[in-house]
């Protein structure tokens, strides 16, 4: 009874192993190729889903069908204007032809090594054609586009596609950064000086204008004063002349008497003769 049971059990067990061996799943993120003793079966990679193969003689190789990331080490490059620059780029790529990929590079790390060789040199060549400022602004998209296209031509024989090469960072080596900091500082110092001088300029303008206005105000005041004084004196002269013109002889007489009285006072010596009209009755 025991041996009767063992034989079906062994057969069942072997059948199970054969079934497990002949079934496989390809995930949505993968493509697969089936190899029969090393020789690829079929000319198209297998799509996601359940698949069968012959057990023991066929095996399956899976490939990632997603867009893969390759982040290169930062590299120092020389621009057309002989400036050093540290460029850190990443590459988005994917396996387009698993069969070709399997034949040429086999694995992702080996593919990345190829990508590294190609993109490193392409970036170097491309960036060497531009000046630092073109790389930093304006031309960046064009440069990466150029690198993408050129790299693509070179990697197609590996069954892979470079989707996008993008410069993640563009840094300057420490000594160049120091030079830029120096220049930035000088630029700001120039600006600061300019602001202060402009302040002084404005200040001097305002002060001078105020001084000028004050001087003019004062001069105009003096002018007005002179005019007023002149008018006063002229009016006075006219009034006197009008009045005195009525009888100049009487004015002369009256004014002479006044003048004699004022001028002949102390410490004067008067020599008189009795002929004077004053002594008319003294004789």
């Amino acid at each position: 009874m025991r041996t009767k049971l063992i034989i079906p059990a062994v057969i069942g067990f072997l059948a199970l192993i054969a079934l497990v061996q002949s079934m496989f799943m390809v995930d949505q993120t993968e493509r697969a190729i089936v190899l029969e003793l090393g020789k690829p079966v079929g000319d198209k990679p297998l799509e996601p889903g359940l698949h069968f193969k012959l057990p023991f003689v066929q095996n399956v190789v899976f490939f990632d069908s997603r867009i893969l990331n390759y982040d290169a080490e930062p590299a120092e490059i020389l621009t057309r204007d002989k400036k050093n620059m540290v460029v850190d780029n990443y590459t988005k790529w994917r396996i387009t032809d698993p069969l070709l990929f399997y034949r040429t590079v086999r694995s992702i790390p080996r593919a990345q090594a190829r990508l590294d060789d190609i993109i490193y040199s392409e970036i170097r060549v491309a960036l060497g054609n531009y000046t630092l400022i073109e790389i930093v602004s304006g031309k960046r998209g064009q440069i990466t586009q150029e690198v993408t296209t050129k790299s693509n031509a070179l990697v197609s024989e590996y069954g892979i596609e470079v989707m996008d090469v993008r410069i993640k960072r563009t840094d300057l080596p420490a000594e160049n950064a120091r030079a830029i900091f120096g220049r930035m500082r000088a630029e700001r110092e120039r600006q600061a000086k300019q602001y202060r001088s402009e302040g002084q300029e404005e200040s001097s303008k305002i002060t001078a204008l105020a001084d000028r206005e004050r001087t003019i105000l004062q001069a105009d005041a003096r002018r007005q004063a002179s005019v007023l004084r002149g008018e006063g004196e002229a009016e006075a002269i006219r009034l006197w002349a009008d009045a005195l013109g009525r009888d100049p002889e009487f004015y002369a007489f009256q004014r002479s008497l006044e003048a004699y009285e004022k001028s002949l006072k102390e410490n004067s010596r008067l020599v008189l003769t009795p002929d004077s009209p004053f002594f008319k009755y003294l004789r």
Partner: protein
Amino acid sequence: MNWDWEKLQGQRRRQGYQPPEPGEIHDRLKRFSNLRFPGGGKLIILLLVVLWGLSGFYIVQPDERGVEKRFGKFTQITDPGPHIHWPFPIESVHKPKVSEIKRVEVGFRSVARNGTLQPGQYRLVPEESLMLTGDENIVDVQFIVQYQISDPVDYLFNVAEQENTVKYVAQATMREVVGNSVIDSALTTGKFVIQTQTRDLMQEVLDRYQAGVRVIAVQLQDVHPPKEVVDAFKDVASAREDKSRLINEAEAYRNDILPKARGQVAVIVNEAQAYKESQVLDARGGAEKFLAVLTEYRKAKDVTRQRMYLETMERIFSSSGLEKIILSSQTAGNVVPYLPLDKAAPRPKQDAAGGAGGKQ
């Protein structure tokens, strides 16, 4: 066991399944071979089948979507709620959180303490934040990117290293946008433009990758000059203050002297006006006095004239300080004019009075 089995194991592990331990398999096989215990064995098998069937039951949370795969191939998306799929290994499910807003920090990292992010506490990452601007200056830019899964299928199956991809794209596009701006606008008014341009460009690149990601916002946290030059930048700000201070001081000076000057003008003009008025009034007074006297004088000309003459002479001659010498006309004609030079010179009053008195 060959590599094919290992591959399957690895696949399960990636899908988040807890693979059955090798020991467990052995147990199952042992139970399978323990069929000779009828009754109890069948119960165990039934229980195992039920448990196996139940492994196809799953719940999608409100913030999730269920993405079902049959034998590894995507079949359908399920909405929140309870669902059943064919048990392992026929079907499996991913449950990405589609309404969660994910966040990428560039240029800094929030510091986590006791497992939670501490607001306001962060560590700087200068190699990420220092960027060249279009006018060959360097700015220090720290920013965050908020994004969401917009298409769970694309997100899960199209791009490897999804989070790194978002971060790399953020770094590359921000540098590109900052590289196209000048430092002054990046530091001041251009921030909003930089944010929107970076967001749009990021979305464009991610769409090209079919990453299934929607960029909600790019937000600049802090944009400032690098620490090496920050003093110079601050000095520019204080120079601007100095400028307005100097201008204000000058305006204060102007506001001080001009009213004073206008006051002086009023003084000068009023003094002159007063002089004018007084001249005219004095003259009018004198003239009117003269005319009044003249009127009366004309009525008795000779007598008045005589009276005025005599009264004036009387006042003159009665003055004690005046020395009077009277000579006859003949004598006067013979006298040699003698000028007392000692008296012509200025002398003290006392002596003059004494001298004069002696001669009288």
